[in-house]
């Protein structure tokens, strides 16, 4: 393949890339304007942000129809260069890459961002930093679009971190609450742990291929010749020589990139930040921590799929399956309306990552798309409910009850009927009931996982079946926790507020079009029909066809070689397996729903106590998210903080102390020397002076000018002289 083809872009491609740049920059410009001048604008400038995002959305739609199923657009610009030996320069480029996946994601992100901002107009009304909220959302939308458009790993990383930054700002939006500030910090730090792995993965690729460009890397990797324990890559860029890389190094590089996904997409073991991130405003949870940002990890896996070896993919699928199961288990024991949804998001992200790992590339992306809509819808509905609960708590002057606890809710079916009808399709899609979007994508992933297990276990190791087993188990659990969620919220009557009139008073908020339209649109988009003309089969889905690996990766599956073609072929050809998994998953989902109903009934019979902790030991374990947080706290963070204290003490009491002691010794030594100088050296001289003085005085005493004295001394001298002569 001609590697330089990607760099020569036609005028048409340039103009498309330019439009993409406009899509990217519009939210940023609006966001920065709002942050700087927002307070002075009418309505604090929410119209500016919504208008910019709306325009972005329209342009994204235009791009979608220009690029979908058309040749890709790849435009590259030099960012900066470093001079090297000779005329050689190390060029760092930035560029825009538009293919089916990118344009579809552009539309989804701008669309959901638009809906969420519209929703926020009422939801965040009266907030004293209203303009900042919209400004942050603008920056977030910009960063997320950047991830989608980036044509190279470095640029992707840049936006990757910026997304983390805007997520930090939005989680901690209500920073007057200590928990919000802490949650934002935690999210950023856990993400950074993953990002460090990501960065090292990028470094490995750069070291050997001298480029960050995804297209060049993809081609270079595609040209790799498998030599068993190593791959030989012919020279990819003119001037480079061929490199041989060991299989384990490539696996490590792939896992490094996967670390980024583990952080951002909340995979085991870094998923603990996502439940805490629910401290942010609910529309933020909807946009960032459900629909878009957390799915960026899956997007990354799709973009980097050719760089993963089969072993790396194995790790990815196991982590994904484990996350799906753990998230679903934890969700079954929660009572906080948003936490349940957060754990559900973790679980669904686990599905997507597992889907990537097993080679169900297009199925995983389909789930990303469908999940974005129905989970955004669920969160926005939860926002309306929390809003109503807040209102009631305010009316009752109740400051002690937790307004987000589903045990305090009930009867919302009658109080907020529109919310109920918008909620049910989204919940059904999440559970995976037929006719709803989630059914299609889940079925595809489950079939892929099943096919993968069969494919891998040809060597006689049936442990591979654990992965689909986990996935099927999660289907049952999803039914269970969603049934619980729905029944607690919408059925029965509120345990806290016996008079539903109070809650009903807040119905006015529900009827506002600003809240209603986004929720209704998202509910409608939870139907399967929009993603596949045959709502019972994913095979004909236009999304899956447009996002197939043949189109996204140009038919180059990369280092994992046969896995991707085999699984994809199986997905689309083995219709009977697909049907079997569909039936099984629906049965499991319905079973889960039934169990959830039983659980709710028994809880209601016993009278729902909001203070009761989970009784069973497993319940406690799941409620506390398997004590992962406590584990990090006790085993890593606290000992490390103690260590930093010791290091600082070492700095102070050892390095500085020994230095000061040395200085003191020098001072004492100097004092000693000065003593010696004063008493010995000076003393000797003083002694000599004194002696001379004494002698002088003696002489002066004799010479006092009196004749009598001279006479006496002369006589005395004479006597002495005589005595001397006589004696000797």
């Amino acid at each position, binding site marked *: 393949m001609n590697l330089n083809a990607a760099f020569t872009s036609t005028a048409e491609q340039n103009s498309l890339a330019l439009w993409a740049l406009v899509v990217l920059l519009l939210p940023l410009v609006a966001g920065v304007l709002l*942050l700087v001048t927002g307070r002075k604008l009418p309505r604090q400038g929410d119209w500016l942000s919504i208008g910019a995002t709306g325009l972005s959305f329209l342009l994204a739609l235009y791009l979608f129809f220009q690029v979908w199923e058309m040749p890709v657009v790849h435009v590259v610009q*030099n*960012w*900066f*260069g*470093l*001079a*090297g*030996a000779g005329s050689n320069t*190390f060029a*760092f480029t930035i560029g825009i890459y538009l293919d089916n996946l990118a344009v579809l994601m552009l539309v989804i992100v701008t669309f959901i961002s638009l809906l969420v901002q519209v929703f926020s107009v009422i939801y965040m009304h009266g907030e004293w930093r209203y303009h900042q909220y919209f400004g942050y959302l603008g920056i977030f939308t910009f960063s997320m679009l950047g991830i989608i458009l980036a044509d190279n790993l*470095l640029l992707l*990383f*840049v*936006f990757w*971190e*910026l997304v983390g*930054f805007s997520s*930090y700002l939005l989680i*901690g939006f209500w*920073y*007057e*609450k*200590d928990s*919000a*500030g*802490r949650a*934002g*910090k935690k999210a*950023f*730090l856990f993400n*950074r*742990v993953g990002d*460090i792995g990501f*960065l*090292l993965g990028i*470094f*490995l690729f*750069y*070291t*050997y291929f001298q480029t960050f460009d995804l297209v060049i890397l993809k081609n270079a990797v595609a040209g790799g010749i498998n030599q068993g324990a190593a791959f030989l890559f012919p020279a990819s860029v003119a001037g480079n020589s061929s490199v041989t890389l060991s299989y384990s190094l490539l696996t490590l590089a792939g896992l490094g990139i996967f670390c980024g996904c583990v952080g951002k997409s909340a995979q085991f073991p870094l998923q603990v930040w996502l439940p805490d991130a629910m401290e942010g405003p609910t529309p933020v949870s909807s946009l960032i921590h459900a629909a878009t940002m957390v799915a960026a990890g899956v997007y990354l896996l799709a973009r980097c799929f050719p760089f993963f070896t089969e072993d790396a993919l194995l790790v990815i699928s196991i982590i994904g399956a484990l996350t799906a199961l753990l998230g679903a288990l934890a969700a079954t024991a929660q009572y906080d309306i948003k936490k349940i949804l957060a754990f559900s998001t973790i679980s669904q992200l686990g599905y997507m990552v597992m889907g990537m790992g097993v080679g169900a590339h297009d199925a995983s992306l389909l789930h990303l798309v469908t999940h974005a809509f129905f989970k955004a819808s669920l969160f926005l509905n939860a926002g309306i409910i929390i809003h109503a609960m807040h209102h009631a708590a305010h009316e009752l002057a109740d400051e002690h009850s937790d307004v987000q606890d589903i045990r305090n809710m009930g009867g919302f079916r009658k109080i907020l009927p529109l919310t109920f009808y918008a909620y049910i399709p989204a919940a059904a899609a999440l559970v995976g009931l037929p006719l709803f979007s989630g059914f299609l994508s889940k079925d595809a992933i489950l079939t892929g996982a099943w096919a993968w297990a069969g494919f891998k276990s040809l060597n006689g190791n049936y442990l591979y079946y654990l992965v689909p087993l986990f996935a099927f188990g999660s289907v049952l659990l999803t039914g269970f926790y969603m049934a619980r969620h729905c029944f607690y919220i919408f059925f029965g009557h509120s345990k806290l507020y016996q008079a539903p009139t109070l809650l009903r008073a807040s119905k006015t908020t529900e009827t506002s079009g600003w809240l209603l339209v986004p929720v209704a649109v998202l509910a409608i988009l939870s139907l399967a029909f929009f993603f596949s003309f045959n709502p019972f089969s994913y095979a004909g889905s236009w999304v899956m066809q447009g996002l197939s690996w043949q189109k996204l990766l140009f038919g180059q599956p990369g280092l994992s070689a046969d896995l991707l073609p085999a699984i994809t072929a199986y997905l689309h050809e083995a219709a009977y397996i697909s049907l079997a998994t569909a039936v099984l998953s629906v049965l499991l989902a319905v079973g889960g729903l039934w169990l959830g109903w039983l659980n709710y009934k028994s809880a209601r019979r016993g009278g729902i106590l909001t203070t009761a902790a989970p009784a069973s030991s497993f319940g406690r374990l799941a409620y506390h998210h398997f004590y992962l947080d406590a584990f990090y706290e006790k085993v890593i963070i606290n000992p490390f*903080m103690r*260590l*930093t*204290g010791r*290091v*600082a003490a070492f*700095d102070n009491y050892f*390095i*500085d102390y020994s*230095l000061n002691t040395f*200085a003191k010794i020098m001072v004492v030594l100097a004092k000693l020397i000065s003593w010696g100088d004063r008493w010995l050296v000076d003393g000797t001289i003083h002694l000599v002076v004194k002696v001379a003085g004494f002698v002088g005085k003696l002489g002066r005493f004799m010479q006092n000018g009196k004749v009598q004295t001279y006479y006496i001394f002369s006589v005395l001298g004479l006597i002495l002289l005589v005595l001397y002569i006589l004696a000797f």
Partner: protein
Amino acid sequence: MNYILSSLIFIPLLAVLIILCLPKQFYNGIKLVSLLATGLQLILAVWLFSAFNPATTQAYQFVEQLNWISLDLQSLGLLQIQYFIGVDGISLGMVLLTGLISVVGVIASWTISKNVKGYFALYLLLVGSVMGCFLALDFFLFYLFFEFMLLPMYFLIGMWGGPRREYAAIKFFIYTLVGSLLILIVMIGLYTSVIDPVATAIRAGHAPVSGPVTTATIAEVQRQVVAGTLASESLVHTFSIPDMQQAANFVPGSILHVLSQKKLWGYPVRYLAFLLLFIGFAIKLPVVPVHTWLPDAHVEAPTAISVLLASLLLKVGGYGLFRIVYPVFPEAAAYYAYFVGLVGVVSIIYGAMCALAMADLKKMIAYSSVSHMGFVLLGLASLTAEGTNGAIYQMFSHGLISAMLFIITGVIYDRSGSRIIDNFRGLAFSMPAFTALVVIAFFASLGLPGFSGFIAELLVLLGAFSSSTVSGMLPRWMAIVATIGLLLGAAYYLWALQRMFFGKHWVHPELNGKSAMTDLTGREYLMLVPLAILVLVFGLFPSLLLQKISPGINHFLQLVLQNGG
């Protein structure tokens, strides 16, 4: 504009004279003179930056070379000290930085009330010596400026500082003096070993007194020196750094000759000389474990002096490594690459861990400087294009970011008289604009993409990581361990942010109280906003700087690699 570099050095020194002539009570005049002098210096520095031609083959530009001291030592040859200044890719960024930060420092000093005349005179003396340090190409001249920085700094900390100022000033002085003594030893050794081939050619009669000396003549002189046929009286010994960088200029049998087999305590003398110089500059950088003067000096120094200390004086250490240590002793640099890299990694992690444990915001930032300067060492030790460019970029970027950080601590200290993190909570409520700038500064310092620190640290880590396959200097684990510094950096900044700025508004009751915590004044905006914009601009458009300096850095790199490999 032939004398632009001299003007850069002497404008502040001239201003010192003017200030000394002004009456003591004429505060505004003194401040205005300082501002004008540094402002003019900045304009010239920017002009120099834009006029600098990166494509030229000349090693140094805007060179001024005058004989300053010549002593005929008969059989020992001629001692020659030159006023030799010039600028290249390594110093260009530092000169620009000095121009920028000097102005910021004057604005930060505007509220000084004690002995204004003395303060600004010393301040400008300091600025002039720093500039001289970055421009000098004669080792003796460099050393002179290097020592001259000490004096004003000692008084500025010792007279205008905090409660423990005398301790801090003496500690700073003695630490640095020890370092400069080590440098002095090697400087004398180098002087005895190196000749100036051009001046020697003229003295020996191989070339006319006036008029250019051809390269052939120089080669002939160098050949005769090696052969020993040139009389020792006609040798012209020099302190010129460019001459020291050429192996052919070393007199055979001299103590630091490249092929010298001389050993001291079992070590080759050149390796020892490298180590002495390295320690001398490492104290200035500073590097663990000779860093303990820095937190004390920072905590006691007034805001503007902290800014200058972190932004400029630390850079002199890194600059010395680039300008003198590595090119003059390339083979020792290659030999000790592992050691230098290790010291860098230790500084990164150790500094970050200490920062995490600090209760005083200014101390935390001081230790973060130690951590960030570790990246300079790591990048330099890697001897790759990415690493060396990253190291210089880190010096430039840290100069801007640390200036912001120290102004930030100054803002808090001016209002409350305290810098202890736990004395404040929820400052975002009373100081929203300030908090926004703090967020920018903290995130810039922790390496968020879009800010200059990210480019610098990315390049350094990239260089260190690929070093094992490109130049073979550093093992890969060093880069991997160093990336943990990124995580720790995020941890201490975000933790401080959470504790001081988020939560409910509260100020320790023993302090001046909540009412004192008002948002930024115009003067403070004037310092922080331009710096924030610069940090952003150099983060988004690294080629603004790299395009100018990268060829010069590459020249340095190739020189070291050829002679050291």
